[in-house]
């Protein structure tokens, strides 16, 4: 073997082994050998944000004596004001985080950061806040602007034309006015303006919930005739339309859109690759997962008082006045409440 050949072989060996060198260092002194972190304690909860905040502020509230100004967690620029209760006039600007053992009331055009109150909460119109957590009922005036989220331990009422940030959750009733923009809402029920008619229907229909149907039909496209009664799950390659007053005792999966005409009822879930529309007084007792928009007309009902469910819209959600949802409403690209579904929104439905 000539020296040139030997050199070439050596160069080849070095090139083959070179990529292994950094790994050799990592094997010798392991810097990144821990298993992927899984949070084993994690369990999905629509009220997670509020519960998490409570767990952090309760010790601060318990430790502070009377009225006090204390450091807030590890935030350098922000302090918390601990109080037994707070009532402020209009146009108040609270530059500190408020932790109240009692009620919290502010007038119109007030601005605040984070607020936690063990008592009742009342905010006037045009309130601007970052975070709000309360253990009892809360009433928020119209045109409110929430930067992050709200979580309430009782009932919550929010005036119209408000911007609701990432999430609003209430352990009780969540009533929102028209013209409200939201991303996630949770309540039992979520009512737009008034939902008495739909709630009354929930009492009658609740027992019809179907968990697993015994039959399954695979179809291309399905139109259920008005007033028909269909038993079993439906798997459709294209759209599904349930006629006025018809009832489907099972779940629906559609490759296209799903439309429930006036007074129609689905006792199971709806999963659609496109828009899901519930016309006036239509009912879905299970979950709704739509890859497109979800549109609920007046009097539409989703879920049941004893079995709250989820509406998940991968795009937008439009909820008209008098619609009622027991459970969780998630609109990935934002949702709106409306006095009525406009022709523009209806045009998006087939």
């Amino acid at each position, binding site marked *: 073997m000539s020296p040139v050949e030997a050199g070439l072989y050596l160069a080849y060996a070095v090139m083959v082994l070179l990529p292994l060198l950094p790994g050799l260092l990592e094997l010798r002194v392991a810097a*990144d050998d821990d298993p992927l972190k899984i949070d084993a304690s994690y369990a999905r909860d629509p009220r997670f944000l509020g519960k998490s905040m409570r767990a952090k502020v309760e010790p601060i509230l318990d430790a502070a004596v009377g009225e006090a100004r204390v450091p807030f967690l590890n935030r350098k620029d922000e302090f918390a004001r601990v109080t037994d209760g707070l009532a402020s006039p209009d146009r108040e600007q609270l530059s500190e985080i408020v932790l109240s053992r009692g009620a919290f009331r502010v007038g119109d055009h007030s601005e605040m950061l984070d607020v936690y109150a063990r008592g009742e909460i009342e905010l006037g119109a045009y309130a601007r806040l970052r975070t709000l957590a309360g253990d009892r009922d809360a009433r928020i005036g119209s045109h409110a602007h929430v930067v992050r989220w709200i979580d309430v331990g009782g009932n919550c009422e929010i005036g119209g034309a408000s911007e609701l940030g990432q999430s609003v959750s209430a352990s009780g009733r969540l009533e929102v006015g028209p013209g409200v923009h939201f991303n996630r809402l949770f309540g039992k029920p979520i009512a737009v303006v008034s939902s008495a008619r739909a709630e009354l229907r929930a009492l009658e229909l609740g027992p019809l919930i179907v968990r697993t149907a015994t039959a399954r039909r*695979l179809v291309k496209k399905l139109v259920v005739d008005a007033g028909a009664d269909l038993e079993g799950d439906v798997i459709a390659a294209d759209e599904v339309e349930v006629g006025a007053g018809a009832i489907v005792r099972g779940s629906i999966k559609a490759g296209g859109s799903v439309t429930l005409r006036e007074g129609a009822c689905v006792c199971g879930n709806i999963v659609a690759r496109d828009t899901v529309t519930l016309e006036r007084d239509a009912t879905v007792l299970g979950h709704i997962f739509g890859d497109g928009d979800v549109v609920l007309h007046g009097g539409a009902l989703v879920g049941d008082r004893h079995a709250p469910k989820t509406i998940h819209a991968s795009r937008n959600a439009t909820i008209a006045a008098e619609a009622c949802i027991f459970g969780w409403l998630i609109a990935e690209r934002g949702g709106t409440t409306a006095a009525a579904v406009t022709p523009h929104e209806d045009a998006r439905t087939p």
Partner: protein
Amino acid sequence: MVVALNAWLTLVVLLMSIYTVRHWIFTFSRVYGKQRMSFSDAYEEHPPSVTVLVPMHNEALVAQACLDALLASEYPKDCLDVIAIDDQSTDATNEILLAYAERHPHVKVLTMHGPERGKANALNVALESVESEFVLVFDADYTPGRGLVRTLINAFVDPEIGAVMGRVVPRNTNRSMLTRLLSMERAGGYQVDQQARYNFNLLPQYGGTVGGFRRRMLAELGGFDQHALAEDTELTAKIFQHGWKIVYDNRAECYEEVPETWESRFKQLRRWSRGHNRVLWSHLWGLVTAPVLTLPQRIDAGLLMLCYAVPPILLSGWAAALVLFLLGRLPYAGGVTLAFCVVLYNAFGNFAPVYQVATAEVLDGSTTRLFLLPYLFYMFPFNSWAITTGFIDAVGDIAKSRRGRWDKTARVGNAPPT
């Protein structure tokens, strides 16, 4: 002969190119594409009844951690039954299980007797006593988190879904070079491969553990083939042929224990390959001609079924290339063919190609472990040999109509990370 060898080599290169492109597409989809989520947002205060089956054979080292994790689940206890199946253990497994059953009324023990042994048979026997519609299966070395049962069950919101599969995460990564490399392979396989197949509405696979199915569907499909060595792959094939779908939920993560010795890993791969290739024989044609599947799904079905046949095919391609090289009859330019083979060898690497593994590790937030990527190239011959051995076993099984024996992976008993 030269013509035949040339044709074979061209076919092998073509097949490898198809796999390479497939995995490029998967990787790009995972990085730039829209990620299809499962149904983990489904909120249920009164979820449906679920039975969790945990088949065990000589699992005394890990049984306790698995049952403790299941008992810590936030799923309502009145809706959750756990059936621990002792499949003829000869160690202390049975005593451990009975002690749990005594303390916890919703834990039941099924002790298997008789000549039949193996996971598929154990599951079939246990399913006879199951009443709930939804069934989850965990291997004994798995430690599910508090919310995992609910996350998996949420998939059945969709009436088209017959089975659900979660993500497997090794917990003993820091034990040796082998466990670290296996951890990377797993990341590539789940974080990118399974998620991408789910994104494209192709065929995500039911993996037999950290997953579940509808009991009614399994009954329709005739239960598990009790002689199958890869009962999960067999079920996957049957599910898609009969118009059901599988959900892959990347957020349903669960720790497992990966083999810590090369011998144990070799046995595991050999068993997987043997079982998978038997399913290839019995289900490939049915899948690629299934009228309920779309064309992309049929293509993916073929590639999925063939994946454990690729190493022997690739080895035969190399042999053909070598013979042609020695005869001086390599097609195209000899060096180009060789380089092409090397590139494809590296690209396909360890069933989760290196760029796919690297992407998965970046998505998982890994840092210096990426330096270990080149080691996967050198692990490939080991994997290829183990899989080829399993392939030969499968060919023997099919030719002689023999069943094959269940060869259990040895456990070490590492505690789950806290």
